[in-house]
């Protein structure tokens, strides 16, 4: 009985290993007002996507929801984990309260603005 449970556990942990989420490819561009992150997460809908900010860590995670026929037998697969996950560390000059996100055709666009005091400004030289 115990042995059986051990085997089950071992199998579970193996499955966990295979279920490592995919790392979505991203483009990250900075301009004067903030940072724009674009991530390719095809198959993820608004309902299965979550964006979390915990302290200074921003995490994107999503589940691929294909409306596949139930008796579909896979014959060839390049996407074998139906999950995406990627985390970034935000620096202190970014305003984590104001993160905005939009999702269109499987591309997530995140906008992280800079804090007011972090925006570049010109310093007047007084006489």
């Amino acid at each position: 009985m115990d042995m059986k449970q051990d085997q089950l556990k071992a199998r579970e942990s193996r499955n966990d290993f295979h279920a490592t989420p995919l790392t979505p490819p991203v483009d990250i561009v900075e301009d004067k007002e903030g940072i724009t992150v674009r991530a390719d997460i095809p198959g993820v809908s608004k309902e299965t996507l979550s964006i979390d900010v915990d302290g200074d860590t921003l995490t994107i995670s999503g589940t691929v929801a294909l409306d596949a026929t139930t008796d579909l037998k896979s014959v060839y697969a390049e996407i074998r984990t139906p999950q995406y996950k990627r985390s970034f560390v935000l620096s202190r000059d970014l305003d984590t309260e104001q993160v905005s996100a939009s999702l269109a055709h499987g591309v997530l666009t995140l906008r992280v603005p800079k804090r007011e005091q972090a925006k570049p400004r010109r310093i007047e030289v007084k006489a």
Partner: protein
Amino acid sequence: MYPSLTRSTGDLFAEFEGLQRQLDQLFGLRHWPSSIRAATRGAFPALNMGVTDQAVEIYAFVPGLDPAKIDVQVDKGLLTISGERTAEPAQGDKVASYAEERFSGAFRRVVSLPEDADAGRVDATYRHGVLKITIPKRESAKPKRIEVRD
């Protein structure tokens, strides 16, 4: 643990990711029979293919495209998916770019269809960046129950 949002490429993390990719290439597709037209890992778009009793279903993961600009063709048992993905124009004054991992440019992937697929009735839909192509099987190839008479 995580890469910083503003790290530059060419650092240790990037090198480590490169190494991981190489390891994936060595071990990743080991258990899967690969087709002669299968591209190496990381090809765009990624494809999944499955069969049911009724049809062959192909999923192409092509995010960020206008569905009208995806070209799907079937010719002599070969399914070709092609198109072009252009990079989004930068908004405002670009100061720096920290990552450019997303695919941009023209793409083309070819899949050989199973013999029993009926190329005359192909259906394609595009949803959440996934192109689903359904090709029904020929009537003669569908499983049939044969009545036993007495």
